[in-house]
C-alpha cells in the first residue's frame, strides 16, 4: 500500500525515458482539452486559472499555453540537470515535466463546477454590497474557495512530482538539488508566462 502511494508522488522510479515522455504528452494534451471544455487554462509551470467571462481561448491556444509551459520548464530543468550530471537525458526531463501534469486533470475537472459567468456575477454582487456599506455575503464565494483550494493542492502535488522527477533524472542529492530546482522553476515560470502573454 505504501509503495502505491509513493508512485503517486514519484512515478519516475518506474516510468521514464521516451515511454514516459509519450505517456506524459498524452496526459498534457488531455489536460488542455478538458481544461478547454471546463474553461480552465494552464499557462506557466504549475498555474491553473479559471478566467472570467472574456473571449474564450480556442483549443489551439489552450494547447499552446500548456505546451509553452511544458517546453520552457523542461528546458530550464534540463540545463539545471546538466550542472549535476552530463548524463542527464532530455527525454527523462521531458517525461518528468509532462507526467507532473497528472494532478491538473483534477484541476481541469474542478473547472466544470465553477461557471465564469457566475464568478463575475458573484464578484459584482459583493462589490455592490461593499459599495452600499453592507457586510458582503462571503458564503456566495464558497464554491470558488473550495475550487481554489483543490486547485492549489493539485499544484503542490505537481511541484512535488516535478522535484522527485528532477532528482531521479539527474541523480542529484542534498541541499544543492533544492536550490537548483527552485531557481529553474522560478526562471521557467517567468519566461513561460512572458512568452504566453506575447503570443496569445
Amino acid at each position, binding site marked *: 500500500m505504501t509503495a502505491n502511494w509513493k508512485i503517486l508522488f514519484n512515478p*519516475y*522510479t*518506474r*516510468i521514464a*525515458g521516451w515511454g*514516459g515522455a509519450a505517456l506524459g504528452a498524452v496526459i498534457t494534451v488531455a489536460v488542455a482539452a478538458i481544461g478547454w471544455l471546463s474553461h480552465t487554462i494552464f499557462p506557466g509551470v504549475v498555474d491553473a486559472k479559471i478566467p472570467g467571462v472574456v473571449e474564450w481561448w480556442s483549443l489551439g491556444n489552450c494547447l499552446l499555453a500548456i505546451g509553452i509551459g511544458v517546453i520552457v520548464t523542461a528546458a530550464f530543468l534540463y540545463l539545471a540537470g546538466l550542472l549535476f550530471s552530463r*548524463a542527464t537525458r532530455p527525454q*527523462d526531463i521531458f517525461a518528468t515535466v509532462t507526467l507532473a501534469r497528472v494532478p491538473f486533470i483534477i484541476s481541469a475537472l474542478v473547472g466544470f463546477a465553477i461557471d465564469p459567468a457566475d464568478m463575475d456575477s458573484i464578484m459584482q454582487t459583493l462589490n455592490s454590497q461593499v459599495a452600499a456599506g453592507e457586510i458582503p455575503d462571503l458564503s456566495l464565494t464558497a464554491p470558488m474557495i473550495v475550487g481554489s483550494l483543490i486547485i492549489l493542492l493539485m499544484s503542490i502535488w505537481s511541484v512535488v512530482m516535478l522535484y522527485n522527477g528532477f532528482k*531521479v533524472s539527474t*541523480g542529484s542529492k542534498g541541499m544543492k538539488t533544492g536550490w537548483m530546482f527552485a531557481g529553474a522553476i522560478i526562471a521557467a515560470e517567468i519566461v513561460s508566462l512572458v512568452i504566453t502573454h506575447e503570443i496569445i
Partner: protein
Amino acid sequence: MLPCQCPSCGSQLTVKALKCEKCETEVTGRYQLPVLALLSTEDQMFILRFVRNSGSLKQMSAEMKLSYPTVRNILNEIITKIESHDSKLENTL
C-alpha cells in the same frame, strides 16, 4: 551471509583464518576483505546482475522493472561506495 562489520562496535571486520575443507589446512593471518565483499547484499546482487546483463542498464531496468535513470543512480551510488572503500584502504596503507 558474510558479515563485514563488528556486531559489537560496528568496526570493519578483517579475515583472520581460512580453512581448507578437503585437507583441513588452516591459514591464519590478517587479511582485508575484498571491496566487493564490503558492499551490502543488495549491492552485490546488483553488480552480479550488471555483469550477467553485459553492462546493459537498459536490460537491467527491464528486468528489475525500474526506470533507466533509477538503475543508473543505483549504479552511481555503488561506484561512490567502492571509491570510498578504496580511499579508506589507501589511507590505511
